[in-house]
């Protein structure tokens, strides 16, 4: 099985540590991970903001870059959702038959990290060690687009040393929503305030999620208020071992 990492443009730029964690983790589990360097972006921001024609080149590039792989793993629920649910929409509307076919082949092979670990590799205990109090926010697109269910929680529960505490009202959106946070900053802040309150109520040291975009939003608020609560992508907790204690 040839496995490619789709890092996403956001993680590539802002959170390369998440990408390194995915590679570390999968290599520790005995797999070779490839990083196709021609990859860029899934086009989610353009698509969700209404710029569909502008999304087409990214959809095309994605299909071409990842076509040759058996599995594409990505540490982002919303980018995986974009590829799986909406690349076909863009291809059908603005592309051509060949692109639609290519998308039809590639999109189902795209897996969000927790799906890939649990469903494709069949592991829940990845041999991680993380001796901290952690609460988990199930991001909306992981939850309701991809239906990852409790896969991330099963992975986290198997982490040695972790003190995993339940986040109240966990399934409520954090208020990020991509360009929503810019177009509707007041509503976004109102939602952020509630999410932060719930995070603080848990007494967690770290808020964990499968999407760094949501974590940037909630973490940005937690940081501004100097709450001392950090944010960590699921991959980084799963990649942590006793050798490299944080």
């Amino acid at each position, binding site marked *: 099985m040839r496995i490619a990492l789709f890092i996403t443009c956001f993680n590539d730029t802002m959170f390369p540590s998440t990408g*390194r964690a995915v590679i570390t983790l999968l290599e520790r589990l005995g797999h070779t991970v490839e990083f196709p360097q021609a990859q860029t972006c899934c086009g989610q921001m353009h698509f969700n903001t209404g710029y569909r024609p502008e999304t087409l080149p990214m959809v095309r590039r994605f299909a071409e870059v990842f076509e040759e792989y058996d599995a594409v793993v990505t540490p982002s629920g919303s980018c995986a959702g974009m590829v799986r649910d909406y690349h076909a929409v863009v291809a059908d509307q603005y592309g051509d038959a060949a692109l639609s076919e290519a998308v039809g082949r590639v999109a189902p092979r795209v897996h969000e990290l927790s799906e890939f670990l649990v469903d494709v590799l069949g592991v829940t205990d990845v041999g991680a060690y993380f001796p901290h109090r952690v609460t988990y926010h199930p991001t909306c697109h992981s939850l309701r687009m991809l239906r990852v269910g409790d896969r991330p929680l099963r992975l986290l529960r198997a982490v040695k040393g972790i003190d995993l505490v339940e986040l109240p009202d966990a399934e409520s959106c954090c208020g990020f929503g991509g360009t929503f946070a*810019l177009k509707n900053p007041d509503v976004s802040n109102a939602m952020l305030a509630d999410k932060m309150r719930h995070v603080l109520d848990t007494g967690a040291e770290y808020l964990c999620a499968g999407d760094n975009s949501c974590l940037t939003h909630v973490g940005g608020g937690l940081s501004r208020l100097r709450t001392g609560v950090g944010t960590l992508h699921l991959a980084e907790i799963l990649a942590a071992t006793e050798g490299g204690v944080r």
Partner: protein
Amino acid sequence: MSGADNVIWLGAPAFPDAARTALADTRQRANLRRATGTIRDKRLAVAAELEDWEELRERAAAVKRSTLRHLDQHLLRLEQAVTAAGGTVHWAADAAEANRIVTNLVQATGESEVVKVKSMATQEIGLNEALAEAGIRAYETDLAELIVQLGNDRPSHILVPAIHRGRSEIREIFQREMGAWGKPAPEGLTDDPRDLAEAARLHLREKFLRAKVAVSGANFAAADTGTVVVVESEGNGRMCLTLPETLITVMGIEKVLPSFTDLDVFLQLLPRSSTGERMNPYTSLWTGVTEDDGPQYFHLVLLDNGRTATLADEVGRQALSCIRCSACLNVCPVYERTGGHAYGSVYPGPIGAVLTPQLVGIEQAASLPFASTLCGACYDACPVKINIPEVLVHLRAEAVEAKRAARLLPTPEALAMKAAGAVLASPRRLAAAQRLGAFGARLVARDGRIGALPGPFARWSGTRDTPAPARESLRAWWRRTRGDGDTPQGSRTRGRPGENSRTTEEGERR
């Protein structure tokens, strides 16, 4: 566009501005939090009771989809059945025509007042205002509609139009306004819900007993039998539907069901989704007129008002499946905080955000499809499986295209998107932008984070720190540690998929 009367409220600000005002209303925030939270929990509990809940949703969605596909035929069958049963069917292309029809019908009875069953269709067309212009007084008899009407207010929820009001506010409204509309509120009225309901009961009773004409909406109408259905909780609807001599029902054309037996599915889904009850207390069904029993004159006004245009949109038409349960409002994190008025329409919340722009045209309500984080809670809650996020992003594209067509110069947003698109079109440009960004960030970041920034950045950075972009992107790290190839340490022999040949191919194929 004529006939958009109350679909959008004249002069309503764009959603982000209206939301800002609404968010500052402490009392409303508390009322909404309490009300939506309660109804959400109830809905989840009763939906979970049914093992075949998902199957019911599938069936309901399938019935609605296929009905919409042959809507014209079902409506003609409905007209035939209603007429055969002694009713009269009227067709209204828009709000103005519907209002004219209803006004004429009331005037023909010689009456100058009507009692009303809670109805979204008549709210949509602004019927009360149209009747008032003709000197006819319309009395809302649904408790929440009564609160809205007495308070000279606007509805903020599809099912509970006064959801934004707390009971102390309701007491104030009753004490202040009831006298001007009829029987005044009792002396010493408390804000106990039982007392408030009793005050409304006394106030309304004299209107029910006096009324000769009633106006209603319809939840469903069966095309095969001509049976019209109203589902309600309070019994006020039953009063209006049975006591007066004349009944005028205004119904959106999408409410028709092919067969009476289709009600089986919908009468299970609707109460559970809307009020969180297994069954609603009152389900009134009538077929034309029955001699010496109930209204002797029945008029059914079939309202288009933008629905045919909506039907033409392959993606957007699913919004016409809506059965007005308002489950999507109650689960929406945006609605829960802003309430309904911010949407500037009788149809608020997620369903409003997809319905309103289609009924009135995207240019008239361009901010609504963006009033969502696309979290998907609405889609999960919808009993007829309207994929609201899908329609939202579809309408966002329409909004952008409409703006593009209407303007000579691109908006700043369009320019930013174009620039981002150019960067993301090439891994080389992306890498260069990453290096530039990392350098720039070092100038403004402190301790690895970027604080509040001025101007357009304030929308984000006013409340959130941003981590500085990494000094080394993942792609740069890969090249440094794993070599130039896509595979680590170049362990595979195949050549690197050249980005340049790729783009050339792409260009030629087009």
